[in-house]
């Protein structure tokens, strides 16, 4: 059957079981949108900005494990995707981005809306393609989906010149694919696994450090089994949150800059770290020279380049977390004798719990998160966060139960991620209660997506932890820059005195309730602590539509505990 390039793209997407794409039209993709116009099996969600569309596809992928698909036009449409692609790359999220390109004969001529998007995205994609020949289109799309979702997942971009969408060829979709240059190792080497078992059995103070790789490979069950069988305490990175239930007695929360004191102490005092699908990010390790110096390291990862990149590894195991953990589990039929070690950790847990200083005058953001925990008990809930203090408070205090329940931009730290990612998660999970934790700063980075929420009638709930500051930067300025609050006050305007007294600030600016209403959404505002529970219940539980909830929180609340950047992770500031 002869199909044009646009029809081929759609047929390929169907073969890949894609039911939803996030796409913004434009000159170079007009033929593709024309073909989508009469398409019944693929739902097209049109964002209000390509970046929003990119994060929406990302949220779709994170919440389901499927490949997210985003479409944008050439030039500015494509460059608007850059932050979304980089976000997905840093967190190893499977994404296929399809961009239009100028006509083949105009490439390289600085044509209207031309940008070298394959050149621009080399360092932030797992792989990318420019398809100049319609005959290669189907195979390329097959490869792109394969690469995005196999091995360590990641974003793949396919750039398609506008004439290729129009040209016709015989449509044939390869059923299988084999790339001589890409064959990830899924099975861990049995000898390495044997050595790992020996090291684990020899250890007296072991700890498991599990990351996003456990979520990506669907290995939560195997990890929980491993913890149960061995009795080894476990910490998960920000990207690994949900892999272990919050109430597992061996769970330590997450480590690093704003992690729990006891997770950091445990890592630092351990004699063995079993790292699974994590990459020793600097927010986790702090000063690398002084990180866990007494510990031997077993590093299990599907990406060999993650092993030994930051921290020297004693035993590398290249393989898929799910397979390697399943193999390891076979070797452990009784718990290790770790009584002394567990007692030590329990006393750290008791002496240094996660906490905050509540009061009855202001609304503490941590209190808001705790109320949300209570309200959503027993409800199928997905949380997303923006980036900054809101993200840390949510990650610290949410009671997470399962993988893919908590979606956050861990690696790139992208403000403007959480709201559209929540949209993507809601599109993919129409029956779930999807709750976005946002800051007043980050929400404004993709606030236009309120239109998308309205147009597709998505019952998304957005909780703005509003302190009128870029709170995380303000916190650093308070602690390390002598309280010189430069550029971080979002209420500040040209009428403000140079030395701010903080007395005559504009209130509710912007007025998020009015912004919500302007987009046809319900807006709520909470200014008193006594109203928090009631209004959140009304907005999230009773109200079945979308809600934008502006919670005016304690202005200068800090995220604690904190390890200053570049310090060892047992050098912890605690000020409440």
């Amino acid at each position, binding site marked *: 059957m002869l199909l044009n390039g646009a029809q081929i793209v759609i047929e390929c997407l169907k073969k890949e079981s894609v039911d939803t794409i996030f796409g913004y039209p434009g000159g170079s993709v007009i033929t593709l949108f024309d073909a989508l116009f009469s398409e019944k099996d693929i739902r097209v969600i049109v964002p209000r900005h390509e970046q929003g569309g990119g994060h929406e596809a990302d949220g779709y992928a994170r919440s389901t494990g499927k490949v997210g698909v985003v479409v944008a036009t050439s030039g500015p449409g494509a460059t608007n995707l850059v932050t979304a692609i980089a976000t997905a790359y840093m967190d190893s999220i499977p994404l296929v981005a399809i961009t239009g390109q100028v006509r083949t004969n105009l490439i390289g001529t600085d044509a209207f809306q031309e940008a070298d998007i394959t050149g621009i995205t080399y360092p932030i994609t797992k792989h990318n393609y420019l398809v100049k020949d319609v005959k290669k289109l189907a195979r390329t799309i097959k490869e792109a989906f394969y690469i995005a979702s196999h091995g360590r997942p990641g974003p793949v971009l396919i750039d398609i010149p506008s004439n290729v969408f129009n040209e016709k060829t015989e449509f044939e979709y390869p059923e299988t694919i084999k790339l*001589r240059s890409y064959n990830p190792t899924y099975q861990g080497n049995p000898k390495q696994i044997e050595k790992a078992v020996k090291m684990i059995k020899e250890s007296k103070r072991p700890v498991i450090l599990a990351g996003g790789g456990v979520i990506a490979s669907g290995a939560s069950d195997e990890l929980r089994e491993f913890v149960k069988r061995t009795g080894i305490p476990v910490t998960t990175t920000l990207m690994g949150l949900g892999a272990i239930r919050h109430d597992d007695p061996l769970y330590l929360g997450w480590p690093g800059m704003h992690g729990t004191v006891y997770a950091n102490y445990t890592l630092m005092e351990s004699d063995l770290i079993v790292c699974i699908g994590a990459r020793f990010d600097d927010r986790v390790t702090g000063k690398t020279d002084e990180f866990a110096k007494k510990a031997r390291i077993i590093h299990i990862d599907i990406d*060999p380049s993650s092993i030994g990149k930051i921290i020297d590894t004693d035993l590398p195991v290249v393989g898929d977390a799910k397979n390697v953990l399943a193999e390891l589990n076979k070797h452990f039929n009784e718990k290790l004798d770790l009584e002394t070690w567990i007692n030590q950790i329990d006393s750290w847990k008791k002496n240094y719990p996660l906490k905050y200083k509540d009061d009855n005058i202001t609304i503490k953001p941590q209190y808001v998160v705790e109320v949300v925990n209570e309200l959503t008990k027993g409800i199928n809930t997905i949380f997303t966060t923006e980036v900054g203090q809101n993200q840390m408070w949510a990650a610290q205090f949410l009671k997470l139960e399962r993988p893919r329940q908590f979606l956050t931009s861990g690696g790139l730290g992208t403000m403007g991620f959480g709201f559209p990612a929540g949209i993507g998660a809601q599109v993919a999970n129409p029956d779930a209660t999807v709750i976005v934790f946002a800051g007043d700063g980050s929400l404004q980075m993709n606030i236009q997506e309120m239109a998308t929420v309205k147009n597709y009638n998505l019952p998304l709930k957005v909780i703005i932890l509003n302190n009128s500051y870029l709170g995380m930067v303000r916190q650093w300025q308070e602690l390390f820059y002598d309280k010189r609050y430069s550029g971080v006050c979002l209420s500040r305007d040209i009428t403000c005195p140079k030395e701010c007294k903080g007395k005559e600030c504009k209130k509710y600016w912007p007025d998020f309730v009015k912004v919500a209403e302007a987009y046809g959404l319900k807006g709520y505002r909470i200014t008193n602590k006594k109203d928090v529970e009631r209004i959140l219940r009304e907005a999230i539980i009773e109200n079945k539509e979308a809600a934008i909830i502006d919670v005016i929180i304690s202005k200068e609340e800090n995220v604690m505990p904190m390890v200053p950047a570049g310090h060892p992770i047992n050098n912890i500031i605690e000020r409440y």
Partner: protein
Amino acid sequence: MKNVHIISVWVENKAGVLSKVSGLFASRGYNILSLSVGETEDPEVSRMTIVVEGDDKIIEQVKKQLNKLIDTIKVIDFTKKSCINKELCYVKLNMKTKEKSDIIMTSQIFGAKIVDIGKKTITIEIVDTDKRVNEFLKLVSDFGIIEIARSGIVAIAEDEK
């Protein structure tokens, strides 16, 4: 400790692959000393010879990152294997009549060829290890070098004897 490594990389012979490889070195801050590319016995495969400097940890990452590129088929580090490697260099010198025979003699000692003689310049071709090429260039620098063009090293494994 920093060492110089000769690394051969087999890649898919496609547009954009060279820029992916060189971009990798730039974005990860690796120090590339030379890079040469050419076809192999399989026209769909190109072979790059990359000379890179770094400590063991960096070289390990270089190799892993090269392997990670989807278009990379194979990576071999020749540092621990014996290999034959050479570099092509053209050097154009000022030619003063009285120095002509000195230039020719130096070239002969190094097995270099005179490939062009003009009114004011003489061009020499030398194919040798980069160490020998460097020695030769040092010697002829006294005659006044106008320009130099070097290919970068290409290498191939030595068979077992």
